[in-house]
Each structure stands twice: as C-alpha cells, then as structure tokens.
C-alpha cells in the first residue's frame, strides 16, 4: 500500500500492471513473472504472477542492483541461461531461485519513449529456456505495456483531479453557510488543513491602507500569529502577495522566505502559499505548512489550494459585503439615536421655559420681567438651534437624493466673513476671534450655503476649544482662480487615527466625549464645497488644534450654472 501511494498508483493502474504481468507470462508460457517500475533511483516491485509470485523477494532494488537493476541500468534485455550464470552475483536471487526451482531468467526494459520506466521479468524452471525470439516477443509486448501503463497513469491523474474538484466543491458548500467574516476565515483555515492534510494554516487579509498582510483566521497556530504583520515581498505570504501567484517552499528554514518571527516560534519544514484574488484584486493570502520531516508539497497540492482559494475569496467577499451592509444599518441606527438626542435637547429648553412662563403668569400678580426676558431669549435661541438641526437633516436628505441645488451669485467674500463672525454673538464669548479678511475677493457662490459652511467651521472651532483660546479666520487668494477661507483653532484637535474619517457622513471624531452635534456638519460642508467646484480639507499644525481650509473657484463675473448634487449612493 505504501508503494502504491508513493507512485500514486490508483486501483485502475494496479489492475493494469497485474494484467500486463499475467498476459506476458501466458505469452511466453513461463511459470513466474514480475514487473518493477522505476521510482527515482530505485526499482519498485509493482506486480508478480506465478505459483510463488516469481522470485521477486525484495520490494525495492537500486538501479544496477541484481538482475532487474542491471536491465534498468543498461536499458538492454538480459537472458540468464541458468542460475549459476547470474552476472550480478546476487546471493538473494540465487537462494530464492534454488529454493523454488527456477533455472532461467529473462528481463526486458519498459520504455516511455527513450526513458526506461520499468523492467518486465520472466522466470522459467527449465534451463536455457529463453532465446532471441522470446526477447523480441517480450520487447514488443513491453512496448505496448508501457503505453497501457502511461494511459492508466493519465487516467488516474484525471480521476485524482476530479476527486480534488469534488473535495473542493464539498468544502465550498460548507463555506456558503457562513456570513460572518471572522468565523468564515477560521472555517477556511480548518478546511484547508483537512484538504491538504496539514497542521497549520493561516489566512491573511490584505490591508490596503497599511499595505500589509494581517492574519485574520488560522488553524493550528498559537496566538502570537495575531500580532504578525507581513509586508509585500516578506516571507512566503508576502512573496505570494507581491507575485500574485502560488508558491511552494520545500526547505523553509534555509530559504530567504524564512520569516524571522516565524522561525523564532514555529518549525515549519515546507510551506505553500496561494493568493486570494477577487476579480484580479489582491484580497489576501492563504498559507499552509508542514512540520513532519518526510512530507513535501507538490504541484497537485498547489492546484488543490488554488481551486479552493478561488472559492474561498468569493465567500470572503460575500461576508465582507454582508458586514458592510450590516454596518451601514448600524451606523444609521446610531445616527437616528444621536439625532433624536440632539433634537430633544433644545425641545427640553423650549418646553421648560414655555412652562416656566405659564407658571409665572398663573401664579404671580406681577411676573418678573427679567425672568420673562430670559425665558423668551432662551426660547428664541433654542428655536433657532432646533431649526438649524432640522435644516441639517433636510440637507442630508437633499444631498442623498441629489436634490441640493446652489443659488449662485457673485459674492464679496470679505463681507460674508464679517457677517458670519458678527452673527456668532455670545457663543464665542470665551474665545478670541481674529479675522483677516481685508482682501477684495469675489466669487460665484451660493452666499447662504457658504455662510452655512463657514458657520459650521466656526461652531466646530468653538466647540472643540472648550477652554477658549484664539480662533483665526483668514481670507486669501493663493492663485487668481482660487479663493481660500481658513479657520484655525487651538483646541483639542483630532487624534491622527480619526482624521481620515472626519468628513464622513454621521462621523464624530469626539463622539465618545459626548460633545453635541449629529456628525453631519463637515459632511454637509464638504458636499457644499464640492458642489461649488471647490474642496475642503483639514490640517493639523504641530502646535495643536486644527485648521480647516476651504478652497473655492474665484473669479470672473460669469456665474457658473448651478450644479446639482450628485447622489452619494
């Protein structure tokens, strides 16, 4: 059984070899026959026929050893007229032949084109049994036998491939039921370990922004793998990612693919890696490794892994989309909860101050005029705040539906800045506002929308400088085509890891700090800037705080036609 496994002999091939041996024995009317095939630098006994199974005592012979070995080495037929004449002087053969009464011997090579692939052996109890005619007959038969063996091998290979496809199809079905990414990647690792019969499997996903492979699912690895990060070209996984092609490394520890972190903690002998490609894009890498010293990966393993990887990446993509959709719903829910909270806050004051006024009039002969004024001020202020929140919600809805339309007119930006700053009133009482807007810059903008953006930037600057401090507003013209508005604060700033998302819808960098707002301001501001054909970006000066820079096309008196917001989804 071990031999058959080594030579990849399936039942089909084993039967073919037995039949060839038996037919050859019948053809030459001998009492014993056998067949050996070449395996590396050895001959392996694969079939015998006869009352004592011929005289093939040993399963393996080196090429050149004993009679069959000499035939394989020379590529020439060999006739032995009687036992004593054995040119190889093989004592084992001699003892066996004498014990079973075999007297003469004939062996011919089996060839696949020029290459010797085996030896067909005939044994007779008659001395001087074989002549030139027997050699020619057996050689002709051996020629046909070699073709039959090759066909059987091809058939076996095809059947093995179909078996692999079947195995892959079977495990693929098990992938389809898992929509959660983390358990899916673990399942993939486990299935690969079953498919390739290996101990350790790791699934890395490609992190586009960090340009590294991150292990996200594994089987047979201890937890240190979690911390491993692999750049393109590093180790087996990194090389597979870079080449976008599978790789087999036989003697892992002595190759340049050996990763120091892996060498330190594990003892892989052979490693195989296959990229996870989705529509040509790299999504990750699967690697599997063997610790047993005797096993190696071969091309068949690689094909099997490639077949599986092609299916696995589809399942990964589905899980990712599923996760994204669920995240979108979660973000929406979260937003609704934040929005409700934000709306309830001014309503609390409106209701409270209105009820306070009613109590004043109900209870007291002469209501306190100072309190009435205070209540009405609060009601006015909070009504505006509520109205602003509702406007933001409507803007969001308009932007998403592509219905936000600009009403442009040639506007003097300096006076626009002045009027926005003036309207801030009490909210900036703890801050020092420095306005540099002496420049005469006119731009075709929607003045109300631009006021909205600038108000939002200033509100943020105030809100995120809770301890007061200087806030600078500057109007400049870096080029004749561009008008620039910059709002700089010296407040708490934004942590580097959160900066990328501040212009996202619903996103609040400081949501954990419970500073108020719905997370819509910068998103809406960016959309408005872009509708104007401009842009908005944030800079974070080394001495703290943030600087938001709004660039708008300045210029000519020609009012560009209003552009409609394009749908964001």
């Amino acid at each position, binding site marked *: 059984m071990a031999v058959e496994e080594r030579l990849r002999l399936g039942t089909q091939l084993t039967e073919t070899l037995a039949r060839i041996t038996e037919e050859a024995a019948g053809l030459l009317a001998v009492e014993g026959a056998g067949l050996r095939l070449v395996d590396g630098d050895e001959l392996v006994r694969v079939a015998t026929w006869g009352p004592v199974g011929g005289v093939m005592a040993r399963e393996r012979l080196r090429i050149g050893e004993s009679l069959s070995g000499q035939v394989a080495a020379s590529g020439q037929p060999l006739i032995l007229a009687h036992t004593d004449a054995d040119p190889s002087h093989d004592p084992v053969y001699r003892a066996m032949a004498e014990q079973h009464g075999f007297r003469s011997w004939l062996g011919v090579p089996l060839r696949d084109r020029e290459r010797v692939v085996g030896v067909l052996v005939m044994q007779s109890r008659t001395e001087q049994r074989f002549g030139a005619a027997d050699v020619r007959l057996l050689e002709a038969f051996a020629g046909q036998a070699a073709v039959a063996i090759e066909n059987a091998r091809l058939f076996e290979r095809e059947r093995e491939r179909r078996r692999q496809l079947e195995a892959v199809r079977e495990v693929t079905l098990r992938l389809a039921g898992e929509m959660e990414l983390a358990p899916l990647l673990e399942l993939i690792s486990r299935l690969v370990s079953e498919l390739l019969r290996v101990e350790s499997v790791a699934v890395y996903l490609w992190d586009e922004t960090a340009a590294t492979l991150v292990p996200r699912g594994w089987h047979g690895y201890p937890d240190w793998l979690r911390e491993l990060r692999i750049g393109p070209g590093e180790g087996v996984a990194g090389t597979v990612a870079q080449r976008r092609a599978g790789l087999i490394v036989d003697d892992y520890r002595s190759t340049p693919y050996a990763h120091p972190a892996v060498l330190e903690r594990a003892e892989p002998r052979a490693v195989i890696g296959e990229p996870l490609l989705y529509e040509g894009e790299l999504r990750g890498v699967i690697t599997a490794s063997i610790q047993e010293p005797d096993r190696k990966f071969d091309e068949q393993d690689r094909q099997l892994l490639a077949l599986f990887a092609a299916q696995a990446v589809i399942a990964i993509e589905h899980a990712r989309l599923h996760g994204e959709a669920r995240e979108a719903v979660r973000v929406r829910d979260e937003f609704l*909860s934040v929005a*409700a*909270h934000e709306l*309830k*806050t*001014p*309503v*609390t*004051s*409106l*209701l*409270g*101050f209105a*009820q*306070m006024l009613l*109590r004043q009039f109900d209870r007291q002969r002469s209501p306190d005029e100072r*309190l009435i004024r*205070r*209540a009405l001020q*609060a009601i006015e*202020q*909070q009504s505006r705040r509520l109205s602003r929140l509702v406007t933001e919600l409507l803007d969001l809805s308009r932007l998403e539906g592509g219905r936000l339309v600009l009403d442009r007119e040639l506007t003097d930006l300096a006076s626009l800045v002045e009027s926005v700053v003036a309207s801030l009133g009490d909210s900036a009482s703890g801050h020092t506002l420095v306005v540099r807007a002496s420049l005469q810059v006119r731009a075709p903008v929607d003045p109300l929308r631009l006021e909205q953006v600038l108000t939002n930037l200033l509100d943020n600057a105030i809100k995120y400088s*809770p301890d007061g401090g200087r806030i600078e507003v500057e109007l400049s013209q870096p080029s004749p085509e561009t008008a620039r508005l910059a709002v700089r604060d010296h407040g708490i700033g934004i942590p580097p890891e959160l900066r990328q998302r501040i212009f996202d819808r619903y996103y609040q960098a*400081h949501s954990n*700090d*419970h*500073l*108020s707002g719905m997370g819509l301001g910068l998103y809406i501001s960016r959309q408005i800037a872009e509708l104007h054909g401009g842009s908005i970006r944030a800079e974070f000066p080394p001495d703290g705080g943030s600087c938001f820079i709004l660039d708008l096309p300045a210029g000519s008196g020609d009012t560009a036609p209003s552009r409609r917001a394009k749908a964001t989804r």
Partner: protein
Amino acid sequence: VSAEAHILVVDDDATIRDLIEIVLSAEGYAVRTAQHGAAALELVAQSRPNLILLDMQMPILDGWGFARVYRQQPGPHAPIVVLTAARDAAARAAEIQADGYLGKPFNLGELLDLVGQHAHPR
C-alpha cells in the same frame, strides 16, 4: 417646600442648566450647577448637596464616570436623579443605580415632583 435643600444640577447644555436653576430657585431650593462630571466632583467636594440631577452624555467626565467616582468617595451620598435625552432613560438610570430618572424633554411639574420626593435637607 424644603427650603434649605441644596440641589446640584450637572448638564452640559447651558440653557437647560439655566432653566432648572431658575425653576428650582423660584421654589426655594439652593441650586448649584456644573457643566460636566469633573466640575461636579469639585462642587461636591466643597459642599454636600441633598440631591444631584445628572445628565448622562457630557464631555470631559460623563454621568457614568461621575456616578462611579462620587460613590467611591466617603459618604453619605446624595440621591441621584438622571435627566437624559437618551432613548431609554430607565435603563441609563439602572446602569448607575440612580434613585430616579426623568426623560428629556420633561414637564416642569414632573421635575418638581421628583425633586420634592428626593431632596431632603439634612
């Protein structure tokens, strides 16, 4: 009316702080206000309130953080009534084992009832 009862109002919204302060002062309560949990901790260190009206979502130190630190301090502790615009005021109150809760927006009558119920001068 508990004339001498001392109420601490903790809320990050200035208008709501004003509202509660005006209403409770008119009823004869002594009111102090803080705009977040950290400022409130400073106030409770100076003088012991008889009742704390606590918003939950605040910058610097939120309602959860305040309640945790306050309860770790040596007693006696004033009852805490949660005032929140969160979806589930009762659940928020339960999280910090508050003595009562009121969802925003609230009626002044309800506020005064709750305060009357929990604010007992010592």
